């Protein structure tokens, strides 16, 4: 159970696309701000395998929501519905992060 003062950190990494570029966005929230995001997070099907839309050169997404010891991650092939809502919000409210600055990532 996350401690009340643990920040909620949501990171979105976008890969693929025609250019194959790696970009990332992150939002860090505390207290009641974190609570406001819970419905968005809980609406996402974290346990289900990622469905990939047909075709090629689409974007691929990796989403991670870390709240104290509570760590939820997913690879999202088709960013629609609740995933799209969450990703759009992180991009709008968060900051761009250099992928090399992401912790726990061996990839350049």
């Amino acid at each position, binding site marked *: 159970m996350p401690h009340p003062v643990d920040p909620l950190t949501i990171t979105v990494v976008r*890969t*693929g696309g*025609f*250019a*194959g*570029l790696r970009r990332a966005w992150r939002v860090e929230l505390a207290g009641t701000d974190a609570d406001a995001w819970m419905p968005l997070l809980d609406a996402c099907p974290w346990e289900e395998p990622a469905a990939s839309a*047909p075709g090629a*050169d689409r*974007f691929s997404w990796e989403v991670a929501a870390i709240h104290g010891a509570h760590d939820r991650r997913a690879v999202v092939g088709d960013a629609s519905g609740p995933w799209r809502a969450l990703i759009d919000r992180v991009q709008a409210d968060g900051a761009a992060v250099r992928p090399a600055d992401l912790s726990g990532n061996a*990839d350049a």
Partner: protein
Amino acid sequence: MHAIVPPYLLARLAAAPAERFPHAVAAARATLAVPRAYAPMRAHLDLSVDGDALVVSAAPDPDRLISDAENREELPGTPARAEGAAPSGDAAVDEAYDGLGATFTFLWDAFERVGLDGRSGSLAATVHYGRAYDNAFWDGERMVFGDGDGEVFAGFTRSLSVIAHELGHGVIESANGLDYSGQSGALNESIADVFGALADQHHKGQTADAATWLIGAEIFTDAVTGSALRSLAAPGTAYDDDVLGKDPQPSHMRDFVETSGDNGGVHINSGIPNKAFHLVATALGGYAWERAGRIWYLTLVSGTLSTAATFAQFAAATAETAVSEYGEDSEEAVAVRTAWASVGVVEDAASR
């Protein structure tokens, strides 16, 4: 309807008492059961005179439809320009129209392939997808272009290599497909880049040594430090920018990138088979689509390539194609074996 015996006659025969004409009745029923597919294709005839002879040659025509998503993300969008229509005045629509046409001409001229599936000239694209959408993709049925963000990407329809790359995915899917992850996915990406580069070279009439071998050279804004998105000649050197980062492509198997993103790095590890193609094309010289491209294309449509093909399996298949087309000790077969050994996909070319 193109048939000798009209359907109504077959139907009367099929309904006749079987005792009277047992074979004919059964045959009529069987004939009516066969689908009578009539697939019209647009084509044009070129007429010329050569001495005393009238020369008639026919070539297929594309059947293009460009649609406008009007900055929404619903497909296909509103029809904006159909085949044969005058320029619309919308640069993205008209660039996509021209690029689709140039790619169609390339596929026919280089490989005698009619469009994406080899049968139909139908080509569809949607432009103005999303808002400041910095991507172009193939959705399984059509090409989809965003407008770019105007900061990094100026637009995608202005680059023939981008357009032909996306249509290349359509050709690959029609052929048999290559699973879009891991090595088979990197092969899928590489073959699409090969189509992109060759369509561009064909349009410009460039030989292998004169070509830039760049993908997407026209899509960056001036703010970006880089010549293009990818280089088949020198993977890893296309861009080095403080915002975008550095071109991550390897050109040798020792530098194969293990990553979870990008479906296992399909846009990254494609650098290795891209370099192999460049080596074959420049070793042979001339127009790259004539021999190197032909070997790659015939391998793709051979029907013997697994959808999960690895680099090594594809390398072996291209070598087999080269041998069967040109001979065991041909310049072409040697170039193919040497190229795959040079990029580390094949251990020892001499022993194969």
